[in-house]
């Protein structure tokens, strides 16, 4: 059955259902599991590694339009964000702005 055989609205609702399934399974497991136990700590490690992996993949191997920008510029701008974060007493807003501004500056002024 082709994805075009159903209406886009039905597709959106089905996509929402298969996504919610994982969230609901997690919520159900959460009420059964010992939150002080080893299993919970292991799953927490898996979660942190998963999200970190996803985000680092977005920086190193982005999809879409960002894929056209230089890797050095992306990593450099993230590094500037981190530097500002720790220099500015863990100010997330300032750090994110600095990272984004260096990226925009790089795009505008570097011969790419």
């Amino acid at each position, binding site marked *: 059955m082709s994805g075009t055989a159903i209406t886009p609205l039905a597709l959106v609702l089905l996509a929402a259902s298969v996504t919610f399934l994982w969230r609901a399974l997690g919520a159900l497991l959460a009420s059964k599991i010992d939150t002080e136990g080893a299993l919970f700590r292991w799953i927490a490690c898996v979660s942190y590694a998963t999200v*970190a992996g996803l985000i680092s993949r977005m920086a190193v191997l982005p999809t879409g339009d*960002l894929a056209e920008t230089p890797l050095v510029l992306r990593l450099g701008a993230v590094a500037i964000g981190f530097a500002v974060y720790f220099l500015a007493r863990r100010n997330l807003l300032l750090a994110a702005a600095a990272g984004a501004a260096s*990226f925009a500056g790089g795009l505008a002024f570097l011969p790419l």
Partner: protein
Amino acid sequence: MKVGTEASGPGPDRRAAFNEGVRHGLAVPSIVVFSTMLGFGSMAHATGFSAFEAFLSTLLVWAMPGQVAMADLSASGADLFVILLAVSMASVRFFPMATILVGTFRSATPDLPRQLLIAHLMSASTWPMGMAASQRMPVASAMAYYWPVATLCITFGCIGTLAGYWLSADMPEIARLTLVFLNVVFLSLLFAQNRDRLVILAVATGAVLGPPLHALEPNYGVLLTGVIGGTFAYALLGRRR
């Protein structure tokens, strides 16, 4: 590791935590989520969805990679089964993430409907923010902090989707790219908030493994990264308390 334990010591009370959540939700995350969904909105427009369908998918799916997979594959005429499998695989990460987040907030929110709502509002932005809050304040306060953060994020996400649907074609290239990049910087910075050695190790391992495993196996790279990286960190630092 302070996952799921009652944070000890002093911390903001629930009202102060709520106000902090409103401030945090209105500051960077709203701009970041707005710009992420701006990208999705313009993609939904290009792939033939209506504005209402685009809006609904942000509200109900609320997972950027899954939404992109849905729009991209349906535009390419893929089988329904393939589309749903791809969307589902893109969101498996929510299973461990929801287990940890809902488990952490369990004592403050014992009823299932609200636990499901916590899990639904969870995203790559709200999860680290909720977890970081649970490490620095009592669970009831962290819960009061999470609600406004999560609600504001999804609200701005929906507005961003519609804005992207109608506007993004008119934006200058640099502005559009920078908005997309803002996500990468912001989400990376959320990890700098962690001070727990085990969490830092799990994050570092995941960040190192993510790109090569994705290059090796695009469909399951994220899952492999989580399982391998998380198990490695746990084996090294997690077994002793």
